[in-house]
């Protein structure tokens, strides 16, 4: 994974209502959801939409990122900007949704980094190039890694559908 800047630092228990407010849930397509990413975090949302935030950046968060609703828009809206989420831990449904739709995320239980810092993901660690510190990554369970390796759940399920149809 290449290096990138921390574009937003968030705390613990960031809910899917913060990531993708419920009032925009009628918008479902991954091509359309990014416009409402962090809609109530007005300045961040504006910067995202104005393309002032370059792809490849990192959102750094505390524990239980993505708690709450099962809305997949919360994962697809971040993926639309090609950002990676590094959090101390993720809520279960959000974690699974991220894997399924191909949002890059890293479980990093001790991560500490400020906005503007340069991060690099390498050799099982997140390196803060600005401070020189590194933080261990918790690997994903094997079964989930298989979906990531397949490029998301759609190609993974497609392969299974074809296998079952004997093709």
């Amino acid at each position, binding site marked *: 994974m290449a290096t990138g800047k921390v574009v937003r630092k968030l705390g613990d228990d960031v809910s899917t209502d*913060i990531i993708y407010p419920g009032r925009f849930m009628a918008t479902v397509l991954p091509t359309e959801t990014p416009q409402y990413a962090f809609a109530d975090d007005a300045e961040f949302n504006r910067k995202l939409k104005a393309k002032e935030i370059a792809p490849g950046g990192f959102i750094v968060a505390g524990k239980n990122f993505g708690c709450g609703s099962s809305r997949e828009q919360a994962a697809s809206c971040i993926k639309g900007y090609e950002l990676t989420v590094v959090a101390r831990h993720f*809520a279960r449904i959000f974690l699974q949704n991220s894997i399924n739709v191909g949002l890059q995320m890293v479980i990093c239980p001790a991560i500490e980094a400020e906005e503007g810092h340069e991060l690099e993901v390498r050799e099982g660690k997140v390196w803060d190039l600005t401070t020189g510190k590194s933080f261990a990554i918790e690997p994903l369970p094997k079964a989930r890694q298989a979906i990531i390796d397949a490029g998301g759940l759609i190609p993974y399920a497609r392969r299974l*559908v074809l296998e079952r149809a004997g093709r």
Partner: protein
Amino acid sequence: MGMTYVQKLLARACGRPQAAVGEVVEPPVSLAMSHENGALVINQFNEIFKGTGLEPKVWDPSRIAIIFDHRVPAESSKTATNQKKIREFIQKQGIKKFHDIRGDSGGICHQILPENGYVRPGMVVVGTDSHTTTHGALGAFAFGIGATEMASVWALGNILNVEVPGTIKVVVKGRLPRGVYAKDLILHLVGKLTAEGANFKAIEFHGEAIREMPTSGRLVLCNMTVEAGATAGVVPPDEETQRYLREEAGVTDALDLFGPDADAVYDQVVEIDAARLEPQIACPHTVDNVKGIGEVAGKKVQQIVVGSCTNGRLDDLEVAAKILKGKRVADGTRMLVFPASWRIYSDALRMGYLRDLVQAGAVVCNPGCGPCLGVHQGALADGETALATTNRNFKGRMGNPNAEVYLCSTAVAAASALTGEISDPRGVL
């Protein structure tokens, strides 16, 4: 080694003698539920079949349930178009467990599934809604998934990559005192475990207070287990489960009843003394920010919401009506009531509860998710405070990030409607 209820259920579902905690299983799905987000599921489902030369066909239409509840009747042309797209798909695929916007059969998914007998003990239930945990109240292993995951279920019929969860055993001793309800119990538990305390785990309920609790209360408990991060909540089926299924849900076929092993191994055991509980309030902006009512009583509220998949059942409307009958919702406070289904609405109409509520000044809306997630009716103004029987109080939840939501039992909500401030119901019951 003994197995917990969920371990045993998953072992049986997969046709094997054991299911060890942490093991990855891919059980067949007994029931797959979606609501308006079915529009995204359909999109992803079609994507799976793209380029395969196979016709997109669901694995078993009889195991799919679709209920319109999040935005009913449609609040925008966009929602109406999503709903139309879903109706066409349902027709084409031959899905029969469909609950459209109808006064004779509609309602909120987490009430429609139980009251129609769609959920039974031992089932594996998945839903594109995080509160699918509700159905553990009837002994199912039920949990929320995303839309792409559901598309994969529709195509394959099993749920991929389920790690057998460890279980937190919650033993609720004694009896709930007067004025204290299942909602207070679950708020207390979420406060105790914290919002991530049960992450990736199941919560299994036991004890005298649970045995004596009707299914309506057990649904409240399991509904909110996800607020502690739990994958699922479950009440091992007992006589009350059978009574509910036979008498209220019209189930006539044989039931598969079993319990956890006596020597099951739990990750953690939490004991709660029901008799010592008082009404609980979850304060902004997290569900685990729970306080005893004494600490927050007197806080002014502009909107009271009674209803939702958590507390919109007949016994909720009964207690609200009892408190408000012949009295008046305080000036400066508006009270919105959302029954959980049209069956409940009709029963409450027959019992006179809706009349009592309306005459007191409450606004009775149609069954649906309403203001709970800020998508449809009941949005808050900047600086306003709401007190709701719903299940989440995250920032922005009720449609406005500059407002606050407190969560409580129906009795607290009704008592507070009389005063316009958070009030202890034990004085007016």
